[in-house]
């Protein structure tokens, strides 16, 4: 049954940088509509993992298998560079912590969203602009600012624009790297609410890397806690956060500041 088959499946993933461990023994799968949070501190291996999952870094061992829209499954390692780029433009999104890494800062807001549509073959200017305007509205950016460049936008607006750029092609899988990092708290809340709604409406599969357990709780169904390159605890998000088993997870949960 394709409806319950994994969309992405990681098996025994490992990455070594010479003698230094990036991460090892990571296995999980994710289906449409599921949000998986990967939490851990700097150096825990979560960014290395995200890079391998998204095919930007070749694993030292293990595999990442992805189910394409035609139902066939492919090992990312076997994709050509052109195929991988095509996936990234159509079926995948990648929301960077710093919106400047995910946007073209010299191109207008409408252009940033429209560009991704053109990459999948849209040619009609009026339709592209209308769809870009619709997406600006969906991420709560005033459509009158469609011709402004993101350099004129606040941090929160840039992040919402980056999300619009990623979602306009209706991807099935979105990777997010600290999507609320560096934003003011009130701006974070607005972004989280927006992300929750979009994820639910579009039935997206999301792998979100964050060091913020509150973000993980609000966004994710499942969580993997990483430390020293390994997954030390995994499960339902509220089980891991309400009843942490491992010493390190207990330390992480106990270290949250309560307002």
């Amino acid at each position, binding site marked *: 049954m394709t409806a319950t088959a994994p969309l992405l499946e990681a098996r025994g993933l490992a990455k070594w940088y010479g003698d230094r461990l990036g991460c090892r023994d990571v296995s999980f799968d994710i289906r449409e509509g599921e949000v998986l949070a990967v939490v851990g501190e700097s150096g825990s291996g979560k960014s290395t993992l995200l890079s391998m999952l998204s095919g930007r870094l070749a694993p030292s061992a293990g595999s990442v298998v992805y189910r394409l829209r035609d139902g066939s499954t492919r090992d990312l390692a076997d994709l050509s560079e052109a195929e991988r780029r095509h996936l990234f433009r159509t079926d995948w999104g990648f929301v960077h912590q710093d919106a400047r890494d995910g946007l073209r800062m010299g191109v207008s807001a409408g252009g940033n969203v429209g560009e991704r549509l053109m990459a999948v073959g849209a040619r009609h200017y009026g339709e592209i602009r209308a769809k870009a305007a619709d997406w600006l509205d969906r991420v709560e950016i005033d459509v009158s600012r469609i011709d402004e460049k993101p350099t004129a936008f606040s941090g929160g607006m840039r992040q919402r624009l980056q999300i619009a750029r990623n979602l306009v092609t209706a991807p099935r899988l979105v990777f997010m790297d600290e999507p609320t990092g560096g934003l003011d708290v009130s701006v974070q809340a607005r972004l989280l609410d927006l992300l929750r709604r979009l994820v639910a409406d579009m039935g997206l599969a999301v792998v979100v890397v964050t060091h913020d357990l509150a973000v993980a709780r609000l966004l994710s169904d499942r969580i993997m806690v990483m430390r020293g390159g390994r997954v030390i605890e995994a499960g339902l998000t509220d089980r891991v956060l*309400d009843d942490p088993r*491992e010493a390190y997870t*207990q330390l992480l949960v106990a270290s949250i500041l309560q307002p």
Partner: protein
Amino acid sequence: MNPADPVLEVRDVAKSFTMHLRGGLTIPVVAGVGFDVCAGECVVLGGPSGAGKSSLLKMVWGNYGVDAGSIRIASPDGPVDVATAEPRAVLKLRRGTMGYVSQFLRVVPRVATLDVVMEPALAQGTDPAVARERAQALLTRLNVPERLWSLPPATFSGGEQQRVNIARGMIAEVRLLLLDEPTASLDATNRAAVIELIDAKKAAGVGLLGIFHDADVRDRVATRIVDVTGFAGARAAA
């Protein structure tokens, strides 16, 4: 479901906490827990504070792990043992088979009260118009003023938040409903409204498992009381 069909079967459940930050100190919570909840009855967990009542509810909901034993829930797809189920299976139970009124509303920033209440019904696939009507009816019944419905509940009083929480917990059509002190911060009028809602759930064949410190409410809603102090075997042994 037929009355007398168990919707929940708890067998030999044990739970302890290991506090790694305190030198691996082990705190026993419960051991040897066994009871059923059948369709149409309200089983109330009794016993003093710290006896493990809330922990038991959380084990059934799945946000506390279980060290031993089984917690079988009769889902439309067959029985699911929450103690050993995959996260996905527990999430599916939470969407369609069991509901939970927690002690406090975990506030989602910026989401309007009406949407907070509707969410569990929408997650079940209920038509949005129907979900909206049900949410409005519940909020009205629980005396949450209409002018508050479009506002996020973050700034509401404790009692108002709790009533929003109850409406949210009651909106979905489930077989098993868990209630953790739903009437704790309510006045007499609203306590009576909650009792009516519980009676309606019982009449509809829902099995309820709850904690009620208020003796009047407890006596009014309880079909049976299961005394949790009887399940403190591990504590005695420790």
